């Protein structure tokens, strides 16, 4: 288990390999479809962005509302590939270093990760109650009008992750599937 803290730099990212177990602590930002679209539109229009992404990690999550006395509701990862059209720009132009989600990424995202040394982490999909326990603080910092799709600033402690795709383009999904594949030759 590798313990790392945010923000990330290229040296930390360089040492993470696909399949590594990571325990992440520090501040991360949330963002999903609507926030990504708005960030990219604002950047393209030359406007100021509501958050600074340099060295940051974005968690693809739209949490449930917090119950009274709780920090946040259920908060597991959403499917990352929907963010793929926006991600290369966030990595190349805005300095994003890490992403937390679930599922495959496009080749364009992987190329940007390799060029700029960024990492893609996986959190356990559908384990929202389990993951929410590791979130110690949550506040909306941008786009509150998007409801669950707003950008939150989260403080996490020992957030359990797996390196899904590393900055060399190695992919744990491909390797894991290959290892356990037993298809009959006629299928």
């Amino acid at each position: 288990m590798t313990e790392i803290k945010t923000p990330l730099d290229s040296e930390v990212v360089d040492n993470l390999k696909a399949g590594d177990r990571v325990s992440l602590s520090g501040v991360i930002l949330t963002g999903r479809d609507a926030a990504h679209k708005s960030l990219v539109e604002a950047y393209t229009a030359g406007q100021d962005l509501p958050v600074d992404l340099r060295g940051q990690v974005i968690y693809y999550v739209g949490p449930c509302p917090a119950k009274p006395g709780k920090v946040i509701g259920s908060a597991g990862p959403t499917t990352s590939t929907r963010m793929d059209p926006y991600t290369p720009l966030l990595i190349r132009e805005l300095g994003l270093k890490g992403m937390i989600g679930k599922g495959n990424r496009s080749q364009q995202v992987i190329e940007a990760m390799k060029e700029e040394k960024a990492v893609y982490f996986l959190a356990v999909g559908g384990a929202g109650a389990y993951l929410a326990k590791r979130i110690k603080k949550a506040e909306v910092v941008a786009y509150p009008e998007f409801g669950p799709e707003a950008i939150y600033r989260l403080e996490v402690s020992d957030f359990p992750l797996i390196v899904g795709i590393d900055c060399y383009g190695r992919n744990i999904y491909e390797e894991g599937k290959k290892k356990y594949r037993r298809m009959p030759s006629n299928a």
Partner: protein
Amino acid sequence: MKEICADEITKVVENLCVDACTKLGKDWWQAIDDAISHEESPLGKEMLQIIKENADLAASTGEAICQDTGMAVVFLELGQDVRITGGNLYDAVNEGVRRGYVKGYLRKSVVEDPLMRENTGDNTPAIIHVDIVPGSDLRIIVAPKGAGSENSSALKMLKPADGKEGVLKFVLETVEATGPNACPPMVIGVGLGGNLEKSALLAKKALLRPLGERNPIPHIAQLEEEILELVNMTGIGPQGLGGRVTALDVHIEVYPTHIASLPVAVNIQCHAARHAEAVL
């Protein structure tokens, strides 16, 4: 003629929304234990254990199992001898969904216009399917459906000549295409026959059947077993990280079809196979 008050329907739907999003059925707990004992990959086994721990935590704290508490899909089996009083049936269901998603602190995940995409703010409207059945009961099933697995679903109008092999191939293609995106281990609902919309509805209904239960038609039951075995040979595994357990089960529902048609719909369900029901 039995009378059922619309307010009562609202109350029941409200509670079912919360129950479905926080508690899984007995069949699920059996299926996850079986999956843990069958999984060969140590990482896969660990993922299944976390999934189980998460479900335990949700049931004991009342937190949602998954933050994607879905669109509320509501099946109503309405006895033909029932009369609804004091309001409109659809309004009563939507009011129940509205209250349930507030009461349970569940996420509001519905946008009004598919292109303009403004959140309706209360998770309505629900997707409501009504079947008129004999008798004087109203059976209500609430099945919240998240988008990760729903987006992984597909439908194809096969040729009759494609036959069983064609069905098998299409289900496998659909599963392989989604891989880790649908939060495996998944449940695979297949609708076979009917026409375009009938097959899709059958696939959705197939997800409501208890895990481990087979279709009563022997050759369809056999096809379920065959598909399950093949899907579990793909290597996708729990969370797509590699392993033996890609699916918890495969359920196929069938309906007569046209002499020229073989529609097949595949509705993928993530591991959080949520549904709750009540009878009024």
